């Protein structure tokens, strides 16, 4: 596959106006779990292609090739409390494995037609919705990494139409096809600006593919899927109040089978004169639980499998960042679950090693008691990543 990618890119490069760029990323992750220390190494090559086929048509694609080394199978039960493990049905203990397998895939591949009155984007493309930094209630397509929320999100197969209305408003319609029309995602969004505030209103219909992690579907050799129609109405805003950046995002979800729920994000940020940057973001998800004693095996697995954004109902994210030199940024992220009163601290270092080489390192320290979302059982560890752009 990789050879094919290089052959394609090589022949494309021979033509005019083809840009080939990307990055190579080498990453080490270590976590202390009980008395053991797990290590996972990964190498990722991302190759981007971009071409202006005509004045109005752009083609873009990314190929990713990722290899994993070290501990490539993580037993999720290692991180859970005995209460939760006791919910595992007899004989299914070996199913709770999170595998890290080498992958080669086409992450994005789309063309974009830009005319005076609209943009039409067709193919696998990134979809980003909402104003939240860590959590995006309106985004039913992606779930961000809590400790690394700015990492790029995967592409989704979709047809997207953006129609500008004047210079301050845009109407977006998006269709992400699935096996049937009913199961396909449909979205309509209106974005605009009032004074110094941006706002958006969105309506989405999408099938949410939950799993029941206590039942196994031996035909599909996977946990039993519980697809459910989800209809969402959301609104977001971002602007400035009393000199501070402020944003909010809200989404109400009507579920076909299970309980309706809502998600809310409120955030603020500020840069002090001495260059220190401060951010707070509060997140509520009524699908989450108010006490760690209510957490179930399904709750945990849905969070690990990125089916659900949070296990606890109320959480706060705080970020303090300061450029200690022109090349080094030091930061401290803390994530606190108000619901179960557990805390994770994540000191982060960003080092601009050279013009096209970034180094990032963080520690992930959990301080919660057993059974909480940031319990010590989650393992204290860290990550070191070097990324070389070309």
């Amino acid at each position, binding site marked *: 596959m990789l050879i094919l990618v290089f052959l394609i890119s090589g022949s494309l490069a021979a033509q005019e106006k083809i840009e080939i*760029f990307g*990055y190579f990323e080498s990453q080490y992750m270590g976590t202390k779990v009980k008395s053991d220390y797990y290590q996972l190494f990964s190498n990722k090559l991302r190759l981007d292609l971009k071409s202006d086929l005509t004045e109005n048509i752009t083609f873009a694609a990314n190929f990713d090739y990722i290899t994993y080394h070290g501990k490539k199978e993580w037993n999720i039960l290692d991180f859970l409390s005995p209460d939760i493990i006791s919910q595992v049905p007899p004989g299914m203990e070996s199913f709770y494995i999170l595998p890290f397998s080498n992958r080669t895939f086409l992450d994005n591949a789309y063309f974009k037609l*830009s005319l005076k009155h609209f*943009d039409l984007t067709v193919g696998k*493309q*990134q979809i*980003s919705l909402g*104003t939240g930094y860590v959590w995006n209630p309106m985004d039913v397509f992606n779930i961000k990494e809590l400790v690394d929320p*700015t*990492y*790029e*999100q995967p592409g989704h197969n979709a047809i997207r139409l*953006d129609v*500008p209305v004047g*210079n*301050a408003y*845009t109407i977006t319609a998006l269709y992400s096809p699935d096996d049937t029309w009913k199961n396909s995602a449909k979205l309509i969004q209106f*974005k605009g*600006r009032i004074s*110094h505030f*941006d706002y958006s209103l969105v309506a989405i219909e999408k099938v949410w593919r939950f799993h029941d992690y206590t039942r196994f579907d031996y035909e599909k050799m996977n946990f039993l899927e519980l697809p459910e129609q989800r209809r969402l109405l959301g609104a977001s805003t*971002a*602007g*400035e109040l009393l*000199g*501070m*950046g*402020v*944003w909010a995002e809200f989404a109400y979800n009507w579920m076909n089978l299970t309980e309706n729920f809502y998600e809310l994000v409120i955030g603020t*940020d*500020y*840069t*002090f*004169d001495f*260059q220190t*940057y401060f951010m707070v973001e509060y997140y509520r998800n009524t699908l989450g639980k108010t006490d760690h004693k209510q957490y179930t095996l399904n709750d945990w697995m849905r969070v690990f499998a990125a089916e659900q954004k949070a296990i606890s109902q109320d959480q706060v994210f705080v970020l303090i960042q300061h*450029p200690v*030199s*022109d*090349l080094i940024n030091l930061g401290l992220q803390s994530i606190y679950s108000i619901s179960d009163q557990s805390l994770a601290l994540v000191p982060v270092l960003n080092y*601009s090693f*050279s*013009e*096209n080489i*970034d180094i990032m390192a963080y520690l992930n320290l959990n301080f919660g008691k057993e059974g909480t979302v940031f319990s010590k059982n989650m393992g204290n560890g860290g990550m070191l990543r070097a990324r070389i*752009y*070309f």
Partner: protein
Amino acid sequence: MKSLIAGGLMVVLLAPGVFSQELTANDIIQKVNDQFNTETSYGKSKMTIVTTSGQKRTFVQESWSKDRGEKNLVRYLEPRRVKDQAVLMLNHADDIWMFFPRTQRVRKLATHAKKQKMQGSDFSYEDMGSGDAFVDDFTSKRLEDEQKEEQDCYKLELTRKQESGSSYSRLIMWIIKENFLPVVIDYYDDKDPTYLLKTMVASDFREIDGIPTSMKVVMFNQNDNTQTEMELLEVKYNITLSDAMFTERSLKK
């Protein structure tokens, strides 16, 4: 006939030494402001940062400006790490949006973000923003004329207005009498008006499309002992730019 009178007045105002004594600080800073804020402009520039360890970092960017600096769009071309990152500033940088191509996200930034260093350089977004800041955020006082960088200069002291959100308490500016371009600007600390933070030195003055332009600007950061050079590679004034260029849609292109 009107235009001839206006033209004649312009010549008189621009003639060095003739009525210079009569020019007030406000007259001078207004002329500097007008000079900076042409109706539209396009520029391609190279920014070279000399870090504390002596390493060099080079960025190349394109920028477009409209409505006398009210609308600005900056897009990075190099290095690869930041390629296609773009910043849109409207309403004299009171509204700022940043586009991150890797995540395809547009983030609205509050005006406090103007204090942040631009790509780790010695220029903040505030330094690069609207030229109206000299008039809107500061009151000007004329000091005794001086020679600076071998140029006959007006010397002005700009003190921050109480309601201003600028991160500099005071600026000292030397303005070339011949063309009303600042040749040196001293930037003083937000809290301590006697503490010199940075000094900007302009050079390589040329006339582009009839408008005096400094093709090179170096910002020396006394605090961090670093410097950043901004060199104009290409510049055009009063070109045709549509309002659609200064929208979120254009930011993502």
